[in-house]
């Protein structure tokens, strides 16, 4: 799946990184616990979270994820958005809850970070 397709699936809008809408991925991790993302094989996956702090951007960069999606219309503050821009980390926000966002993405055939379905 590509980021622009994810945006369509989740009715999400880009907060930053629109120029990377053609980046592809095939796995997704959903967590508000950053150590869960760091302990998983998150590289080249997408991070879904309800947490909109600076630590989410750092975690995404360290773990090598391709984009961050905030659920429930969450949006980080301008400083965090600027940091994501510096790291070329796309960020999107969706009106759906974590549960519904995961369900919509799962229905398209995407897997969890370890490849499980």
């Amino acid at each position, binding site marked *: 799946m590509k980021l622009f397709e994810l945006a369509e699936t989740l009715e999400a809008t880009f907060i930053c990184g629109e120029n990377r809408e053609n980046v592809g991925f095939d796995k997704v991790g959903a*967590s*508000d*616990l*950053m*150590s*869960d993302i*760091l*302990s998983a094989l998150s*590289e080249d996956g997408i991070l879904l*979270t309800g*947490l909109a*702090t*600076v*630590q*989410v951007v*750092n*975690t995404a*960069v*360290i*773990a*090598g994820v391709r984009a961050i999606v905030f659920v429930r219309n969450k949006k980080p503050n301008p*400083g965090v958005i600027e940091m994501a821009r510096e*790291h070329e980390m796309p960020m999107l926000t969706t009106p759906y809850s974590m549960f519904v966002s995961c369900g919509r993405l799962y229905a398209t055939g995407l897997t969890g970070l370890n490849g499980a379905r």
Partner: protein
Amino acid sequence: MPALKKCFHIKGRDFIHAGKASISVQNMLKQLNVAPSLIRRIAVCGYEGEMNAVMHGGDAVFSVEINTDRIVLEISDEGPGIADIDKAKEKGFSTAADEFREMGFGAGMGLPNMENNSDQMIIESEPGKGTVVRMFFETCETSGSQDG
């Protein structure tokens, strides 16, 4: 390749800048063409250690030493120390305050993640005297290879 060493100073409770040292090390290792899977392991260990120091340890020194055959990360803090190191390494054990949990940390996964992602981890600590965490990474098995 001669040993290359770089140190970063970490300020306790400075959550805005927490992570910068690990991301700098990550970028440094990319420039040195270290294997991506090894870079990821080192970055994860560094970041978890950095967050531990910022949350619990007060001011700290974060250093990386890069040798041909191994890379060593050391995080030395001036915090309260750890009374029971084996207990602190158990999954799920945490003394973190709620404010840290709200940032997505403090769930007792930091030290287990660091131990899992390093080839060897040594913790020296004593209550009232701070903590030194050293993590060792062998470079020979993955150096120059593609990410797995």
